[in-house]
């Protein structure tokens, strides 16, 4: 057994970075904090790679040939009840190691990129401090040994996302976007918390090893029908999925993600494309055995929500003009596909194809999506605009960005042999085994994906040359190098035999490319590309015609199907005006009014009583005399027998 306890340093380094840069960063030049953060990330990246190597290739496998799942480090953090306690530690298994690699790689690239991108911004140091905090929390989330540790880091991820979206805090839109992101995910987290409470109530443990092990208490307890015909365990899994759906921007909790693009672009690349938003997928994957064996209904929920989100987001993405929003909806759509893949999956090697596909897609998606975002960042950096109508013909000015962006687009469109092709193919294959209808839905999604990505690509890099304020040019080396490095990932990540490493039962297996599924998928993708080329390569009025032909539908899609408005109505109108305001009124006037009323009555009574003391001598005397007379009468005649 190899000692993996050093992995805890992958968590400690960013935490230290956060504290040091956050507290003392402003004592030095801004660049120092950037460099410090990047160096820290580099060390963590190396550590992760080493860990992955040691885990997959050096560490001996368990008796049945599967990869081991064990605690590399564990420490008691808080005792709750006799059986429930929160630990902090590092859990290593294939998916956590895969996530370590994804996070550290993308984070490292983003750090390098940010040194160039954020150069000269006010709050450079704050940016890097928060990035460190994010890395810390995200890593803590993926290596969590128990569901409560996951919840803790889950919240921390949320807050670092909040801080980073609201980085430009003087901009009102950024402030409200950050608030929205936090509150929506917080609402989802409430579901997560309730799920945890229900789960821990039935199973009396938080521990992942126990919960997902062969004799998990989750399989035996809480299985009775509890509410609306579903068992406690199903409900708890649905609630937990609600948390995941919030973080992963699944319908209907997705509304924060497009707005979150108000943050600096590297942040969007890191948090809102590659890492944090896939936390929900990771969460479901982490608890996968419980979903499969104890709560299949909850897994169906995951499947339907994922499928619906993917098509929903893909449609919206086709109508948006802000390049980052297109990418955001694309992210949502891709994550929907991952969720879908998990939903259709079974447990085991080949039955668990969906699980593997989902993880695989998560892995490849991280590369090409962060590449897309960083590319978008380079474009925005060059033309100072987000709107694709104001761009065109940029391929002359930004050659490197152009090439890398094209690679990423091809990858996401599923053109072989780029990364996206392989993972998407697996997802479709898994979906095909389960449900034909949803398989076709996903097929349409992949076509739409190709379409909107190339719509973006052609509008930005081809077409008319616009009048720019100053000639666009590539950013500094620190910005282009990460683009190039990530495009290597986007090119070749798909060639990794992923099923040899990650599977639902941690047992390696071979997965074959199914031509029957791959060929139609590629054709659909190419079709999308061709349509996009026809529409957008040269400026035509075709898109407008089609847009108008679709009438209400396209308008609704352009307005994101009015989900935002619905939420705004619920929060602003209902909660704010019809709940909170009456409560405030009720409190002031009824509750406090009754307290004040008591005081008022006392006052009033005493006011009446004080009038007896009128200062009128004769009145006193009259009362006195009458009193004496009465008492005399009483005691001499009436009360004597």
């Amino acid at each position, binding site marked *: 057994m190899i000692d993996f306890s050093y992995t805890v340093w992958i968590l400690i380094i960013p935490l230290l970075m956060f504290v040091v840069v956050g507290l003392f960063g402003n004592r030095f030049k801004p660049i120092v904090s950037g460099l410090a953060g990047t160096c820290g990330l580099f060390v963590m990246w190396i550590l992760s790679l080493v860990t992955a190597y040691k885990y997959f290739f050096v560490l001996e496998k368990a008796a049945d040939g599967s990869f081991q799942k064990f605690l590399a480090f564990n420490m*008691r*953090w*808080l*005792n*709750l*009840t006799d059986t*429930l306690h*929160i630990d902090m530690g590092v859990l290593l298994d294939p998916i956590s190691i895969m996530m370590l690699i994804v996070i550290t790689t993308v984070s490292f690239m983003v750090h390098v990129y940010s040194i160039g991108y954020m150069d000269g911004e006010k709050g450079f140091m704050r940016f890097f401090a928060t990035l460190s905090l994010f890395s810390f929390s995200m890593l803590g989330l993926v290596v969590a040994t128990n569901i*409560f540790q996951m*919840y*803790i*880091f889950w*919240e*921390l991820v949320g*807050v670092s996302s*909040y801080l980073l979206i*609201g980085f430009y*805090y*003087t901009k*009102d839109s950024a*402030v*409200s976007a950050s*608030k929205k992101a*936090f*509150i929506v995910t*917080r*609402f989802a*987290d*409430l579901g997560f*918390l*309730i799920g945890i*409470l*229900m789960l*821990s*109530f039935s199973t009396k443990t938080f521990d992942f090893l126990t919960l997902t092990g062969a004799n998990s208490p989750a399989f035996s307890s809480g299985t009775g029908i509890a509410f609306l015909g579903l068992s406690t365990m199903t409900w708890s899994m649905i609630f937990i999925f609600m948390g995941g759906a919030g973080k992963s921007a699944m319908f209907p909790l997705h509304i924060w993600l497009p707005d979150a693009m108000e943050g600096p672009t590297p942040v969007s690349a890191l948090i809102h494309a590659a890492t944090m938003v896939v936390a929900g997928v990771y969460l479901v994957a982490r608890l996968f055995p419980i979903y499969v064996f104890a709560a299949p209904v909850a897994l169906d929920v995951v499947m339907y929500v994922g499928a619906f989100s993917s098509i929903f987001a893909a449609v919206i993405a086709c109508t948006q003009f802000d390049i980052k929003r297109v990418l955001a909806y694309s992210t949502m759509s891709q994550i929907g596909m991952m969720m879908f893949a998990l939903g259709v999956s079974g447990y085991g090697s080949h039955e668990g194809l969906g699980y593997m596909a989902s993880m695989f897609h998560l892995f490849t998606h991280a590369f090409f999506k962060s590449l897309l975002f960083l590319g978008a960042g380079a474009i925005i950096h060059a033309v100072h605009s987000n709107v694709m109508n104001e761009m065109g013909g940029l391929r002359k000015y930004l050659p490197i960005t152009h090439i890398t962006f094209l690679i990423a687009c091809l990858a996401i469109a599923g053109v072989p042999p780029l990364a996206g092709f392989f993972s998407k193919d697996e997802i479709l294959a898994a979906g095909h085994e389960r449900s034909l209808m949803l398989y076709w839905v996903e097929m349409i999604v992949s076509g739409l994906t190709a379409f909107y990505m190339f719509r973006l690509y052609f509008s930005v890099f081809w077409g008319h040359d616009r009048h720019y304020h100053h000639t666009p040019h590539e950013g500094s080396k620190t910005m282009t190098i990460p683009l190039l490095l990530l495009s290597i990932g986007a090119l070749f990540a798909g060639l990794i035999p992923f099923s040899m490493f990650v599977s639902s039962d941690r047992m390696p297996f071979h997965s074959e490319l199914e031509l029957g599924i791959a060929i139609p998928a590629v054709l659909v993708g190419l079709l999308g590309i061709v349509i996009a080329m026809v529409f957008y390569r040269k400026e035509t009025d075709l898109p407008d015609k089609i847009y108008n032909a679709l009438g209400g539908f396209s308008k609704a899609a352009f307005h994101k199907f009015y989900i935002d408005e619905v939420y705004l109505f619920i929060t602003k109108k209902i*909660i*704010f005006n019809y*709940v*909170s*305001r009456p*409560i*405030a009124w009720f*409190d002031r006037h009824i*509750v*406090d009014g*009754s*307290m*004040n009323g008591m*005081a008022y009555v006392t006052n009033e009574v005493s006011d009446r009583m004080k009038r007896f003391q009128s200062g009128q001598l004769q009145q006193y005397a009259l009362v006195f005399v009458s009193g004496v007379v009465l008492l005399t009468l009483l005691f001499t005649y009436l009360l004597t027998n």
Partner: protein
Amino acid sequence: MSILTLFIIIPTLTMIGILFSKSHMQVKWVSVVGMSLQLLSAIALILLYLAERRAGNMAEVLFVQDNVWYETLNIHFYIGVDGVSVAMIGLTALVVFAGIFASWNIEDLSREFFISLILLATGVFGFFICLDLFTMFLFYELAVIPMYLLIGIWGSGPRHYSAMKLTLMLMGGSAFILLGIIGIYMYSAPGGGPLTFDLIRISKQTIPIDVQRFLFPFLFVGFGVLGAMFPFHTWSPDGHASAPTAVSMLHAGVLMKLGGYGCYRVAVFLLPEAAHQLGWIFLILATIGVIYGALGAIWQKDLKYINAYSSVSHCALVLFAILMFNQTAMNGAILQMISHGIMTALFFALIGMIYGRTHTRYINEMGGLMKVMPFLAVAYVIAGLASLGLPGFSGFVAEMTIFVGAFQNADTFHRVATIIAASSIVVTAVYVLRVVGVLLLGKIKNEHFEDLPDARWYDKVSVIALIFGITLIGMAPLWLSDMINGGLGPIMHKLLVAVPVLN
């Protein structure tokens, strides 16, 4: 002589010192020295306590001292602490320490101000160390009365109204408490022998159930008024809005905890059967309070009102947890008291500092303060995040302990109540972020605010001490939680003996 008497002696000496101080500066420094010593002895007490426990001293209360001071009624000066009271003493010392620095700018009648403040603190310390019901009540009153002067003289806004309201409502509560205490005293020796106010001795007795049922509402409501129990919380928004900074800090941070502590230590501990039978009524009130306070805070525009309503919500959670009658939830209740105490003190300190600079507390009139006073703004964000229960700060630990504990109850009523109460964390996020967004972020609305100064050194001492407190508990809660757990043994034992259903 027990180390605990230090907590009475040091403030007394400090007050005498202030009385003989000549200048404004000297008054402040005497207070600082006194309260720093107090803080040090609190830390020493915590360490000593932990050492004693580690050494295997498993007595119910430690550092006991017992003197009779009124023989006719068998009233003792009986002091001693368990894990819970040690934690509360630590909280009080920290908040008072920060409070002294937060009131550095008091110019008018500074001597009288600091004497009242420390007198208040003495009352609180006395309350926490005493084990004799009557002496406890005495200290309780000692803590409540100076509040009237502090708000009435040094307050702002409709201060006379607020001071009067606050004092009257709390006095109403203490009348209830007095009645309850005397009732308990009358039944303190059912097996014959002299009547006693001794809490530990009474806890070994069983008071007849119909008497308990009569007394429990009095005690719980009486302490509940101070603990801002719905619907007896309305003194809190007005009182806090008018009170000077340090007074708000002490009041919300410490004094309101007397209510929760009293409910726990007197009402539930001595009257467990009645608590179990009647608890559901108060549980409903507490659950309403949790949600109601949070929703009420959303609409408010005055910073102090927002915080006062948030306190209502958080303090209701304390009562909520106490009424769950299990060890984890009770532990959470104590943690929540400590966490909320530090957190709300931090909030009020910051609000006071911001108000001292901008001279307004209306959030709509401010904006973009992050640019002007980054230190205070960042501290405010930290306080806000702590308040909405972010991991890494004490609020999370407390809330999660409460929710997990409360959810372990076997019946649906308690678990549904838990889910309802848990939903407050979302609402809390809404109002905290709303304030942060409007107040600190965005553009500066008033150009006069452009060159306001950031925190001075004394502000920083106060703020950093409190932030240190919440992060320490938030990052490493195990020692505190275990310490409190140790103190919860007797009450849980009594509850389980009295109400075997809970097992």
